[in-house]
């Protein structure tokens, strides 16, 4: 076994895992009744993307609180990396959701409470990066963005979990069964594929997060070396 393969085996395993999950999502999982065509299969990608976005915003909160307590620049890098990934995965969940909306409800955007709340969440975390870009001083930028991230996180559970459940929504319930009935047991084959996809996306998130943090550290060291 070569050195690179020894080091990167888990990445190749992730590659195979995702390919198997994609094909299982289309061929192993049965067609859900009560949805137009095969549109319900998007659940195997849309739900894990939304889950990873929530996970990323939780990591952002932890890193931001740690930064405010210890003023360690590494925590600021962790907070920025997780917010960046949270924003990307929120955008992906919005895009995949709008494809589903187009098939099911005839329009990409329906001003549904879930759509509006995810759009507000995207704006809240986009503002986090606007704030970071607006402050040239590194320490001040890190402090203010960490404080903002704590406040931004307060809106996240409200926008993701509370608002869509208060108002009537077109959005399917969180559980889709083969028979199409809501709040019933999901078909076991669908559940297996969904869990495999959730595991794959979580794995991918931590890989990307690790890459982002390491890249920020390397670039920071290089900048400090050039300045001195």
């Amino acid at each position, binding site marked *: 076994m070569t050195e690179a393969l020894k080091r*990167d085996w888990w*990445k190749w395993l*992730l*590659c195979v895992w*995702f*390919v198997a999950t*994609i*094909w299982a*999502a*289309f*061929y192993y999982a049965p067609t859900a009744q009560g949805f137009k*065509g*095969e549109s319900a299969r998007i659940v195997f*990608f849309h739900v894990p993307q939304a889950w990873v976005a929530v996970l990323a915003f939780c990591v952002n909160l932890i890193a931001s609180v740690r930064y405010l307590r210890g003023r360690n620049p590494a925590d600021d890098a962790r907070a920025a990396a997780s917010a960046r990934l949270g924003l990307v995965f929120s955008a992906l969940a919005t895009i995949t959701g709008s494809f589903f909306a187009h098939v099911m409800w005839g329009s990409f955007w329906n001003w549904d409470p879930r759509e509006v709340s995810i759009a507000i969440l995207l704006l809240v975390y986009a503002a986090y990066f606007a704030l970071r870009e607006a402050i040239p001083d590194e320490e001040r930028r890190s402090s203010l963005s960490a404080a903002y991230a704590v406040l931004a996180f307060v809106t996240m559970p409200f926008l993701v979990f509370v608002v869509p459940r208060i108002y009537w929504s077109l959005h399917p319930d969180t559980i889709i069964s083969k028979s199409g009935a809501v709040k019933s047991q999901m078909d076991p084959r669908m559940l297996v594929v969904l869990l495999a996809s959730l595991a794959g996306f979580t794995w*991918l998130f931590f*890989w*990307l997060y690790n*890459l982002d943090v*390491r*890249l920020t550290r*390397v670039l920071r*060291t*290089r900048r400090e070396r050039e300045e001195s």
Partner: protein
Amino acid sequence: MPVAESLVWVAAVTTVIWLGLFAYCLALDRRVRRLEEER
């Protein structure tokens, strides 16, 4: 087009997108490692 045939296309395109993303991540990973070694 029969449903099964269109599903093959969707699955194939999704796989290609994933493989592209994976290749990019792998290349970025190697670049970061090289930069760390240089440091």
